[in-house]
């Protein structure tokens, strides 16, 4: 059962402002301000706005926590607050509560800073707190420390599918009785000198610098790469009986989890989408559903040439042609940019909100149809719908394919 949600994103730092931006089709993409990007091929990104660390952390504490972990911690606070879950240090239930974070990188800001110091000033000038800021699992460690969670605490690092894996793995821990409550999700804060430079050299990013809000255009014929986003998404997953017993407000259910690998190339998806299709089919099977049950797909939809055509092909294989043309699909990365390791969790949250509120968030910037991308992408404007099940896709460098199937609050409460 899902009983709490939390987000920090380029379009809003809480669930309500995030959702209203998505429904309004508002882009969070703009010029990069985190560093001077004037000599970079790409000078735009979806940055988190109005996030003042000292509003959330004591000054001393903030210095030791990378923005990556800060985003995750704030998203987890929101989710736990909504779930109305609070553990004291000696609470007997602590041992059955845990946290699972997904990351593409981890503390990349600290990594870049420390390597810079190392090269400029030598080995004895790097910070003693650098390593704990950098390591990706620290976000989970910090959440466990803050909220007294003594159960399974872990981290998944599978590039852009990481936080979808984190949600799936956390649900699995609950399913097999290893935990009753898991705070799960993911984060990324990689809009750094090296992050942008590295993706640029892989020719992965859009260079539509003069029109930032139009740069992320998944499925559109004039897409030219993804736009980096940043932020975090967190979900409280809870054992059904426990949630019902304590009278928690149930927001939905994670009912299907599918994984596959492309086993093809380090960064390119396998052409034809067969790998991604197997993950989607596995997720539907895991949830005991048929393609006809799926009312919405939140696509991975990165705005790269290869992903969007391949994912479209994958949806046709997994859903079957008829259902593929029926089901509305949107990529909210058109507004948030690609939150990398945090994307899966943020988009699972979008999927749940869409089901619960009966609104499909759009894919913005649909201006030039691509014959290879000919499905219903909820072009440019949100629209009402009714449905009980949604699928959220997340694929990562390395050939990772993950699909999650979520059920609405209505089916979860039945």
């Amino acid at each position, binding site marked *: 059962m899902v009983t709490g949600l939390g987000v920090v994103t380029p379009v809003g730092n809480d669930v309500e402002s995030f959702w209203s931006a998505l429904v309004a089709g508002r882009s969070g993409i703009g010029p990069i301000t985190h560093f001077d990007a004037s000599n970079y091929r790409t000078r735009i990104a979806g940055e988190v706005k109005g996030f003042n660390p000292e509003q959330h952390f004591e*000054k*001393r504490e903030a*210095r*030791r926590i990378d923005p990556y972990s800060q985003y995750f911690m704030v998203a987890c606070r929101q989710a736990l607050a909504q779930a109305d879950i609070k553990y004291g240090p000696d609470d007997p239930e602590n041992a059955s509560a845990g946290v699972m974070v997904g990351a593409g990188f981890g503390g990349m800001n600290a990594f870049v800073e420390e390597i810079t110091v190392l090269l400029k000033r030598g080995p*004895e*000038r790097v*910070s*003693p*707190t650098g390593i*704990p800021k950098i390591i990706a699992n620290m976000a989970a460690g910090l959440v466990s420390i803050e909220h007294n969670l003594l159960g399974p605490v872990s981290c998944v690092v599978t590039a852009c599918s990481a936080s979808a894996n984190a949600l799936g793995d956390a649900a699995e821990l609950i399913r097999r009785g290893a935990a009753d409550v898991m705070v799960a999700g993911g984060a990324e804060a990689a809009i750094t000198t090296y992050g942008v430079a590295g993706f640029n050299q892989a020719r992965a990013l859009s260079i539509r610098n003069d029109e930032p809000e139009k740069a992320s255009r998944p499925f559109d014929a004039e897409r030219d790469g993804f736009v980096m986003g940043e932020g975090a998404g967190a979900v409280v997953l809870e054992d059904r009986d426990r949630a019902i017993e304590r009278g928690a407000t149930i927001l939905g259910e994670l009912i299907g989890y599918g994984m596959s690998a492309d086993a093809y190339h380090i960064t390119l998806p396998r052409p034809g989408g067969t790998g991604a299709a197997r993950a989607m089919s596995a997720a539907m099977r895991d949830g005991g559903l048929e393609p006809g049950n799926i009312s919405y797909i939140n696509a991975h939809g990165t705005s790269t040439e290869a992903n969007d055509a391949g994912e479209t092909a994958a949806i046709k294989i997994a859903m079957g042609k008829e259902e593929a043309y029926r089901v509305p699909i949107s990529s909210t990365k058109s507004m948030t940019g690609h939150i990398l390791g945090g994307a899966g969790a943020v988009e699972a949250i979008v999927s749940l909100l869409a089901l619960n509120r009966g609104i499909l968030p759009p894919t913005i910037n649909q201006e030039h149809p691509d014959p290879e991308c000919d499905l219903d992408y909820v072009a440019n404007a949100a629209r009402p719908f009714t449905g009980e099940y949604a699928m959220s896709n997340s694929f990562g460098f390395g050939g990772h394919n993950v699909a999650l199937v979520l059920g609405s609050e209505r089916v979860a409460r039945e």
Partner: protein
Amino acid sequence: MEKTEIETRLRDVLVSELGLDADKINRSANFETDLDVDSLGVVELLMAMEDEFGVKIPDDEAEHIHTVGEAIDLVHGKLNV
């Protein structure tokens, strides 16, 4: 350099580089128990002192620093040999 100048500069560094609470800093304050400086913070403290005063503090000398006063004395000794 006079101890009072060392104290002023050390206090500024403790606030700006380590984020310590200025009100709690005095010569008798113990880094661990009064100022809540943990083992990682001690290394930050030594680095900050080395950078600020241009001195080198080996680990065996660092072990003797428990209070702000001892830190001032150590720096004073190194600068006035």
